């Protein structure tokens, strides 16, 4: 919390951590000191399930360019997914 840049989003899905799959209830999105990637600050994604203990967590640390590229790729895939879901069933 050295940068105070930290937000969360409620999500629904699953993540696979060291102890297997678990239901994800939220994602913390922050820009702050990382634990592993060799940067002073990183874009951090923490997929968590608040009700399942602090160990229910899958974390990713990215540099800003990588995070932006990921965000754009996610939006691009979602556009394709929306089109796929909207197409009439054959």
């Amino acid at each position, binding site marked *: 919390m050295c940068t105070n840049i930290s937000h969360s989003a409620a999500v629904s899905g699953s993540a696979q951590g060291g102890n297997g799959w678990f239901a994800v209830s939220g994602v913390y999105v922050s820009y702050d000191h990382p*634990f592993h990637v060799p940067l002073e600050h990183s874009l951090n994604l923490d997929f968590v399930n608040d009700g399942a203990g602090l160990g229910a967590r899958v974390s990713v640390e990215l540099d800003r360019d990588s995070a932006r590229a990921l965000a754009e790729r996610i939006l691009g895939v979602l556009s394709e997914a929306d089109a796929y879901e909207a197409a009439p069933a054959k």
Partner: protein
Amino acid sequence: MQTDAYQGMTAEITTVAGANGDLIHAYVARPLGPGPFPSIVLFHHMPGWDAWYFEATRTFAAQGYNAICPDLYCRVGHGTPEDVAVKVRAEVGIPDVQVVADAQGCIDYLKSLPTSNGKAGVFGTCSGGRHAYLAACQAKGVDAAIDLWGGGVVMEEKDLTAKRPVAPIDYTSALDCPLLGLFGEDDRSPTPAQVATHEEALKQHGKAYEFTMYPGAGHGFFYHIFPAAYRAEAAVDGWKKVWDFLGRHLGG
């Protein structure tokens, strides 16, 4: 150190009464023997109550200090240090008033030991440096303070929160012990400009301080476990300054 002289220490996790009488975990490392020994309270950094801080606590004990490192995140929960720190990061920190009360509990505990020489210092890096400065200004019984690259001593009004309602620099008039500050020129929190602002406040209030700004160093230059951050020359020089400073002010 003399190769034919005895030295030993005890180091373990215990509990200490902190804010609101809460029993929080603390790692305590103490030299063996009757002393008397000066005391030091270590405030861990944002990444958590972790192996680096346990090692630092033992290092202080090896240098002849009764040392305690409280788990400032204890109330948030338990897991790996990263598990807990991620949760604290998501909640944007812990309350300053709680940190100061936890610090007071630790100072009082160490000074109550029969091996205490009656003097206590505070030490911290990163958010711990900010916490050490807060404790030096607001807790009772602090005889020396060490702030290593503590970001957030200088804060803009827009960054104040319910957990951090007052910028620590605004407490400077209440600082009544000498302060050692070590910083990196390439750090973004605190920036050299923020350190200069802090220094100006210390001068204005006539406080005793010793600041060093290391060229080529950023945030975390003592952390030998993070090669990207570690700056060997600055770290070796910095540790020498720490021991010299504490030796002069705590009698260690």
